[in-house]
C-alpha cells in the first residue's frame, strides 16, 4: 500500500505530479476518457486511486466522464477528470451543470493545439477563452495555469481547495509541455498540506435548504444518502432547490453564483511578479509561456531594457485591478501566450488604453521562444 501523500523528492512529469496532487488533496473518484496529452493523469490515477480507497473509471466519452465526476461529488467524494481540447468541448454542458448546481470538482485541460483534432501531441494555450465562456449562459469560473510539474502538484491541491470552498468545478489549464515535462517535484509531509472540505449542513435535516447561502454566498452541501432529501436541478432554482421559472429567480441565482467568485476574487487570485518594480515594459504570461517570458526578461535586462513579468497563476477570475494598475505605470504591456490573442484581449480591456498593448503569440504546436519575446521587447523599446 502506498501512502496518500507521496512525501519526498521525485522526478515526475507534470501529468504525474498532477495525479499526485489530486491524491494528496483527497481526490477519491476519477472519471475520464483517454486523450493526448492528458492520458497519463488518468493512468496514474487508475493505478493508485484504488490503493487509497478511491475509484477510477474510464467512461465511454468525456460527456459521461464529466457527468460521472459530478455524480461522484454529489455522493460526497472529491472528484476529478482530465482531458484536452476535444474532450474539453464535450464536457462543457455538464461543466455548466456543475457551475449552476454548485458541485465541487476539478477538471484539468492539458492543452494541445486546436481547432478540432489539430496537433494532438503539441502544446498550445488556445482554450483559455473556452475555459471562461465554453458553457452557455452567464457565470464565473476559476482557472489556474501551472507552469511546471511542481506547480501541477500544488495547483491541483489549490484547485480542490477552491472547488470545495466556493462549490464549483475548478479548471486547471495546463499545456502539453507542462504536462509532459519531467522535473524535480518536492512533495511535503501530509501534515504540511492544508486541505479544505465543503461546508456541511447544520441543524434539522428536514428544514435544510440546499441552496441557502451563508454570508460568503456559498451554501453548505449535503451529499446524497445523508438523509437531507435534497433536490438538485440544472433548472433555475430557489433556496430549496426547487425549479423557479421566473426572470427574478434567475437574476437572483445567477447573481449569487457570479458574485461568490467576483466578490471573493482577492482570496482567489494569485500572481507572481518578477523584476516589475522598476520595469517599463511588463510581460503578462502564464503556463509554459511564463517560463519563456522569464528567460526573455533576464535577457532584455542584460541589454538594458527594463522589462518585468507578471505571471498569472490564476487566469480566471482575471486580475483586472492589477492589470489596470500596471497599465498606469508601464510604457507597454506585452502578453505572451500560445494562441492568437485571448488573454491579450483581457489585458487590453483592463489597461483601458492607458498604455500600449502587444501580443507575442502563434497558433500553437510549439512553445514561444525567449528570442521571439526578446525581439518584440527590443522593437517596443526602440
Amino acid at each position, binding site marked *: 500500500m502506498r501512502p496518500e501523500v507521496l512525501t519526498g523528492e521525485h522526478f515526475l512529469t507534470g501529468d504525474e505530479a498532477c495525479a499526485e496532487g489530486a491524491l494528496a488533496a483527497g481526490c477519491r473518484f476519477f472519471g475520464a476518457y483517454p486523450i493526448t496529452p492528458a492520458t497519463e493523469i488518468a493512468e496514474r490515477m487508475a493505478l493508485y486511486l484504488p490503493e487509497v480507497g478511491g475509484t477510477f473509471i474510464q467512461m465511454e466519452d468525456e460527456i459521461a466522464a464529466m457527468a460521472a465526476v459530478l455524480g461522484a461529488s454529489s455522493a460526497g467524494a472529491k472528484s476529478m477528470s482530465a482531458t484536452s481540447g476535444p474532450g474539453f468541448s464535450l464536457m462543457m454542458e455538464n461543466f455548466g*451543470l456543475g457551475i449552476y448546481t454548485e458541485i465541487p470538482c476539478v477538471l484539468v485541460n492539458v492543452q494541445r493545439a486546436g481547432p478540432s483534432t489539430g496537433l494532438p501531441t503539441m502544446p498550445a494555450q488556445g482554450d483559455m477563452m473556452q475555459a471562461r465562456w465554453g458553457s452557455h449562459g452567464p457565470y464565473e469560473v476559476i482557472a489556474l495555469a501551472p507552469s511546471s510539474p511542481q506547480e501541477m502538484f500544488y495547483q491541483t491541491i489549490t484547485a480542490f481547495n477552491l472547488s470545495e470552498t466556493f462549490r464549483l468545478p475548478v479548471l486547471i489549464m495546463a499545456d502539453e509541455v507542462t504536462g509532459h515535462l519531467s522535473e524535480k517535484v518536492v512533495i511535503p509531509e501530509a501534515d504540511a498540506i492544508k486541505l479544505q472540505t465543503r461546508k456541511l449542513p447544520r441543524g434539522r435535516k428536514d428544514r435544510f435548504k440546499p441552496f441557502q447561502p451563508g454570508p460568503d454566498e456559498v451554501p453548505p452541501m449535503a451529499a446524497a444518502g445523508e438523509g437531507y432529501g*435534497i433536490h438538485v436541478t440544472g433548472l433555475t432554482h430557489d433556496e430549496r432547490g426547487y425549479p423557479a421559472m421566473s426572470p427574478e429567480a434567475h437574476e437572483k441565482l445567477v447573481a449569487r453564483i457570479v458574485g461568490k467568485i467576483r466578490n471573493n476574487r482577492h482570496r482567489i487570485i494569485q500572481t507572481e511578479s518578477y523584476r516589475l518594480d522598476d520595469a517599463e515594459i511588463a510581460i503578462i504570461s502564464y503556463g509554459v509561456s511564463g517560463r519563456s517570458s522569464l528567460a526573455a526578461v533576464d535577457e532584455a535586462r542584460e541589454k538594458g531594457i527594463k522589462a518585468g513579468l507578471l505571471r498569472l497563476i490564476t487566469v480566471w477570475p482575471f486580475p483586472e485591478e492589477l492589470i489596470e494598475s500596471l497599465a498606469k505605470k508601464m510604457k507597454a504591456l506585452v502578453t505572451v501566450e500560445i494562441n492568437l490573442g485571448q488573454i491579450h484581449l483581457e489585458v487590453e480591456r483592463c489597461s483601458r488604453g492607458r498604455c500600449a498593448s502587444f501580443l507575442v503569440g502563434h497558433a500553437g504546436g510549439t512553445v514561444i521562444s525567449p528570442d521571439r519575446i526578446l525581439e518584440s521587447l527590443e522593437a517596443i523599446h526602440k
Partner: protein
Amino acid sequence: MTTKKNQPTHPLDSLVRTDRIPHIWCPGCGVGTAFSSCLIAMKSSGIDLQKTTMVSGIGCSARGPGYTNLDSYHTTHGRAIPYATGMKLANPQLNVVVFSGDGDLFAIGGNHFIHAARRNIDLTVVCVNNLNYGMTGGQVAATTPSLSKTTTTPQGNPEPPFNLPLLAFASGATYVARWTILHTRDLTKSIEEALQRRGFSFIEVLAPCPTGYGRRNRERPLDALRFYQEKSIIKNDAHPADIILDYQKGITLGTFVDVEKPTFTDIYEKTCRLDPAACM
C-alpha cells in the same frame, strides 16, 4: 409537509414533495402512473429510503425525481446514467434509481445506457416510453413506431424503433422487464424486484402521450390503454429478440431477464483494490 388538518393524506405523501404539486404532466399522460408504481415499489421493497436517490435527465418523465421526497438529481439531457454511475461508485451504499424517458435514455443518452449495462453498474433504470419527445411538443424519438406521425416526421416516420429490452439484454443488463401503465401491479412488483437485485436492472414502461403522440396518430386518450388491455401478451422469460411491440400484432410484456452477475464494484474490489500490482 403542509397537509391541512382536514385533508385526507395520500399513502404516498411521505415520498412526495407535496409542496411541488400540481405537477407538469398533461391530462391522459402515463408518466404519473409509472411514477406512482415506482414510489410504491420503493416503499414496499424495504430498501433504506434515506440511502436512495433518484436521478433523471431531461424530459417529462425526468421531472419525476423532482417530485420525490428523496435525494434527487435532475441532470442534463441524456446524462442521468453516467451521473448515477458516478454516484454509485463514489458511495456503493446508495440505492440509485434512474427515472427518465425514452428520448433521454435511448437517443441522446443511448451510448451511456449500453455501457452502464455492459459494466453491470448496480442501478435500477426505469424508462417511461411514450414513443416520442413529449416536453418539446411531440417529435420523433428512437422509439417512435415506423410510419407514425410526429412534428418532425409529418409524413410518417421513415425509421424503425429500438426494441429496448433486446438492447438492454444484448448490452448485459441482469434484469430486463417491460410493462405498461395499465399493468400497475406487475409493474410495481417488477420495480420492487429490480430494486432488490444487484446489477443493472432495466424496466421499460409503456405510457400514452395523448398530447404529443396520440393526437397526431388517431389515438384518443383511452385508445392506448385499450391497446394495452387487448393486445398485450404476458410472456415471462421470453427471449428479448422474440418480443414484439406492435399495436396491430401485439405487445409482449413480462420479465425477460433475471440473472446474477458480478457488478462493476464487485470486480473492481477484487481486481484493483487489494493488489495494485495486478492492475499494471
